[in-house]
């Protein structure tokens, strides 16, 4: 997936707020998401489209309703791109330490 689209989508506080609302309660309609927000319905629709094209929100139809779900998979991919490497390095360091402590020549 396009990391640029993910970072751009996350760079806007209104879009992060929408993700927070879906994180608190997943599977909301547009009207439910608009409740209590300062944003216009059109603005929310636009932000949701950006989030959907970055694959941070997935929309599903249920009957006549369109429900929005937070999709954390791209964020996890970004986290593991860097954190995963640290984990590998930590494991490599541990195995090197183990080898050094146990000694190859004993």
């Amino acid at each position: 997936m396009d990391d640029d689209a993910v970072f751009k989508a996350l760079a806007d506080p209104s879009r992060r707020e929408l993700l927070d609302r879906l994180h608190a309660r997943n599977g909301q309609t547009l009207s439910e998401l608009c409740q209590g927000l300062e944003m216009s319905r059109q603005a929310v629709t636009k932000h949701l489209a950006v989030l959907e094209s970055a694959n941070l929100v997935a929309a599903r139809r249920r009957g006549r309703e369109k429900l929005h779900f937070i999709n954390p998979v791209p964020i996890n991919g970004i986290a593991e791109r860097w954190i995963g490497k640290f984990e590998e390095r930590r494991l490599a360091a541990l195995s090197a330490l183990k080898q050094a402590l146990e000694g190859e020549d004993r």
Partner: protein
Amino acid sequence: MTTKSLDQFVYVTFIRTTPERLWQALTDPEFQKQYWFGMHQESDWRAGSPWKMVFTDGKTADAGEILEAEPPRRVAIRWRNEFRPEMKAEGFSTCVYEIEPMGDAVQLTVTHSIEAPQSQLIRAVSGGWPRILSNLKTLLETGKVLMPERPPVAAA
């Protein structure tokens, strides 16, 4: 309202592979062990067949049956937790994999739902899926996994 009593998540990932390879990765136990932190599933992946998720020590984690199977496009699993009484008490959930070709990639959508509000099962599995899907994507695209089984430090 029906939407209030259903707890659900929808996870989507795009993987540069073919539907056939992705189907194999999702259904083959040896493939599963590589990205599912050592766990695997047992089933012949035909509608009506039993299905179960097995821990590395051989204990059953979850069990159920295949509701629908349409290789290499779609599978629906009736899924119940078997090792935590409070989750088992929630009864059966439904997990659906949908595989859709998108240019040179494939869109995998995982939907997991249960007819219960604030489901503990949904909360538990929703935390694991992003890592499993990231692992699966990396495995299919590069032949490696970022996070294999939990650190084999003690066993090393």
